[in-house]
């Protein structure tokens, strides 16, 4: 399968959107484009299974490479392994759901859908890139659309949030940029040959001193995308000001770019430094988990609740990566997928509630289950997944991370694991409280009696995400088997580096 299709389809969709007239055409084109993309993603999964089943043990499959800037060794090099496929699947699900919940955006709809699709293009390109330049290019492409999405269609102090988010994320990518340059100029294989290629670099031995200098740049840079403490402050503002679809994309896709980058670029290419700094990573991740959970307790706005809990949940991703054991890393990737689906569903449900009640304050809502049972059920499912109920993807992912973390016998790592575990309890408190106050109990407003339940597009959007959550929650093995070859490569690379 030609992976460039994954970039071309959104590109064509986005360009077609520009030539459409009116909301009906625009949303139809966007939906068709994103559905085609979802079919492609599923097809990619099937082809991948076939290839692996046929005994293809290459590190990356479906590779293709085109020269872009010859003198600078820059190629458009693409390829996927199980990890990228999981991320691509996640992205395609979230994009379809995001397009569906934006069904009635009638203000500047052309621009809105264009930017949504452009954002997803950046994410797809990022996940298939095997060339660090291309990867960085796509990473930055996915940032600027957020500025417009939040600033134009957002709510509250939207301009401030948009600016803050973009500047912080661009700050992150500036760090990544320096890290990448440092990495590039130290890939000398002896004859003045430098490389941007992930596979080639992974076969070279980057000097440990160099790794120690540039690993923090890359890890913190990508970490900012993934709400690494103390660079998480864009998350609450950005998420709460963004329109529903943009929140879903932000939490469901963008934050995953960071986690994926931390794993694929920082940790995989500089394993010695990752080992060296693993204590610091775990410390920051644990702070994010615990702090995020407690900060959520204090929130009264549903979007803020989900935004702060995202900080906590993304902390698990970084914790899993920092633990450097295969189970923990598998768990981290599962958590990325699970959190992406769950948080998108959560934001979708919040958006649906907000569209009807025009408030997101927990205290002003109540009794919604009686009038809008479908949306309320979706909300409950998202909440249960967030607190890690068995049967949902959240349980599988967090469990895997904890088991993986416990494999580390060092005392400090154990303490971090225990602290992270206890945050689950806090999660339960705030989720159950928010869910209970919002959908149970008496009405707070008489007007809530007149609310209408979800339309077909909203049901469809929620349905897709719930299918994803249950597919991982009930039958997690397919996902862990999908990831196994990718994590194998990474963990072998790390272990060989550490033992030397």
């Amino acid at each position: 399968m030609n992976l460039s299709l994954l970039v071309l389809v959104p590109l064509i969709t986005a360009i077609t959107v520009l030539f459409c007239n009116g909301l009906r055409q625009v949303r139809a084109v966007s939906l068709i484009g994103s559905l085609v993309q979802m079919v492609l993603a599923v097809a990619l999964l099937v082809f991948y299974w076939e290839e692996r089943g046929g005994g293809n043990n290459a590190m990356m499959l479906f590779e293709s490479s085109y020269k872009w800037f010859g003198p600078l060794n820059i190629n458009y090099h693409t390829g996927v392994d199980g990890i990228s496929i999981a991320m691509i699947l996640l992205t395609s699900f979230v994009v379809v759901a995001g397009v569906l919940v934006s069904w009635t955006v009638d203000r500047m709809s052309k621009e809105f859908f264009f930017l949504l699709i452009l954002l997803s293009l950046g994410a797809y390109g990022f996940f298939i890139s095997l060339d660090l330049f291309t990867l960085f290019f796509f990473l930055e492409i996915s940032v600027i659309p957020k500025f417009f999405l939040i600033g134009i269609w957002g709510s509250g102090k939207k301009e401030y949030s948009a600016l803050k988010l973009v500047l912080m994320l661009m700050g992150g990518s500036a760090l990544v940029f320096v890290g990448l340059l440092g990495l590039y100029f130290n890939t000398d294989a002896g004859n003045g040959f430098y490389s941007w290629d992930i596979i080639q670099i992974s076969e070279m031995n980057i000097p440990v001193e160099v790794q120690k200098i540039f690993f923090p740049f890359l890890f913190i840079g990508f970490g900012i995308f993934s709400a690494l403490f103390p660079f998480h402050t864009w998350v609450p503002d950005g998420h709460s000001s963004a329109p529903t679809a943009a929140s879903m994309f932000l939490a469901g896709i963008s934050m995953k770019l960071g986690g994926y980058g931390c794993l694929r670029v920082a940790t995989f290419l500089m394993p010695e430094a990752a080992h060296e700094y693993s204590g610091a990573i775990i410390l920051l991740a644990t702070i994010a988990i615990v702090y995020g959970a407690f900060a959520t307790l204090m929130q009264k706005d549903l979007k803020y609740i989900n935004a702060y809990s995202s900080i906590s949940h993304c902390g698990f991703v970084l914790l899993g990566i920092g633990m450097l054991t295969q189970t923990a890393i598998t768990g981290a990737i599962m958590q990325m997928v699970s959190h992406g689906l769950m948080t998108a569903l959560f934001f979708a449900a919040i958006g649906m509630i907000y569209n009807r009640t025009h408030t997101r304050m927990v205290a002003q809502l109540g009794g919604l289950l009686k009038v809008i049972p479908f949306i309320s059920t979706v909300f409950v499912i998202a909440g249960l997944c967030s607190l890690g109920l068995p049967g949902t993807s959240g349980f599988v992912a967090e469990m895997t991370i904890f088991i993986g973390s416990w494999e580390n016998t060092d005392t400090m790592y154990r303490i971090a694991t225990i602290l992270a575990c206890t945050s689950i309890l806090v999660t339960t408190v705030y989720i159950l409280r928010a869910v209970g106050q919002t959908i149970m109990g008496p009405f707070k407003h008489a007007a809530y009696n007149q609310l209408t339940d979800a339309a077909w597009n909203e049901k469809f959007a929620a349905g897709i995400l719930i299918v994803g959550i249950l597919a991982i929650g009930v039958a997690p093995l397919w996902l862990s088997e999908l990831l196994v070859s990718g994590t194998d490569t990474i963990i072998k690379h790390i272990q060989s580096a550490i033992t030397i």
Partner: protein
Amino acid sequence: MWNDILALLKQELIVCFIILILLIIKVGAAEWKIDRILMLANVLLLANFVAGFVSNFEGSLFNEMFTTNRLINLEKNMLNLATLIISLQSYNWLKSHKHIIEFYVLVLSTLLGMFFMISGGNLLIFYLGLELSTIPLAAIANFDLAKRQSSEAAFKFIISSAFSSGLLLFGISLVYGTTGSLDFDVIGHMLTGTSLQLFAFILLLSGFAFKISVVPFHLWTADVYEGSPVAVTSYLSVVSKAAIFFVLVPVLYIVFKPLAGHWYNMLFILSILTMVIGNLFAIRQNNLKRLLAFSSISQVGFILVGISGSSQAGSASVVYFLLIYVFSNLGAFGVVSFISALTGRETIEDYKGLYATNPMLSWVLTIALFSLAGIPPTAGFFGKFFLLMAGAGRGNYALIVIAALNMIIALYYYLGVVKAIFMEANESPIEHLKVPALPKMGMLLCAIGIIVTGFVGWIYDYISALSLGF
């Protein structure tokens, strides 16, 4: 001999020929209509640009005083392109003036001067070209005769240019005194790094720094840019700057190669100062022309980062960046100049709500600003990336970190403009403006250049191959 002159001086002769045609029209008996003159001038400039691509030769004339090769040819084509775009974009502004033939004659003389400057293989020719490219500019900076600001700008410009020329001449004379030659090739071999030669080099570099407004030699820039008509401002900030860089790069890499250790440290400090101060001043600007002026100062800082890197990558990335800079800066100036010519409004507040009334102009300006900020998928991303990459080639990562941080600061004020255009409401927004065909062509040319250049990999490959000599 005559064949050689015809072949090698082709581009210069064409420019002279165009000047001649315009002068004949001027002194001719019949008064031409302004529209016709504008059309003719743009057609001639287009012809000039196209002619730059056919039958090019390499070689040198007059004892190596004048050389040309494929890189120089490309650089001249870039200047031609920029002049054409500026001419297209200033259509509305020119239409309101009577003496437009003089405008074109003056602009073309400066272009001629730049051509000689770039081709010069000798400090004397270089200096002659530089003066020819500077003095007429002062005249057109004063083109809005009725405006006091315009005369003020012209006066500041001529004074500061004269001062920098003085520095340059002093430097040149010291170079001649210590090496006994004015030829670039000879000087390169005769330099030994004595303190007098170093002093001469510092004087020369200061002269250059004045012209490209490197901090701390930048003080004239903002006032001149603000006071001059926007067409002149864009010409100053793109064409004359690019021309100076085209000379500065070989002068540093070839002529002053023996002093590389010294100028490397100087460029390190100058580039940091220029980026930081340019950006910090730009943040506080409310007038878009001034904002672009300071932002173009900080862009110069980034170019210096590229020059301070390894030589082939440095030269290639600088030329490549300048090509992209032509599109991005002219795109931004084009929109600002168009709006300023029709409505006289130039502040960021005036641009609030622009998207609702003028979507096309808004998009061109936004794309151009993103390109200046270095955001993909615009070409500016590739330009900045390669500049900093060339800079990092020497392993000076402190410089790269500072440059990367400055990109964030720059992004802040560019986004401020974008925010005003797209997100903020305005009680009296700029009304819907109908864009005539010629300025529209100029703007779209920039927009297309910004979007396409980065994806066509062979442009960089070509420039890089031409820069092999360094």
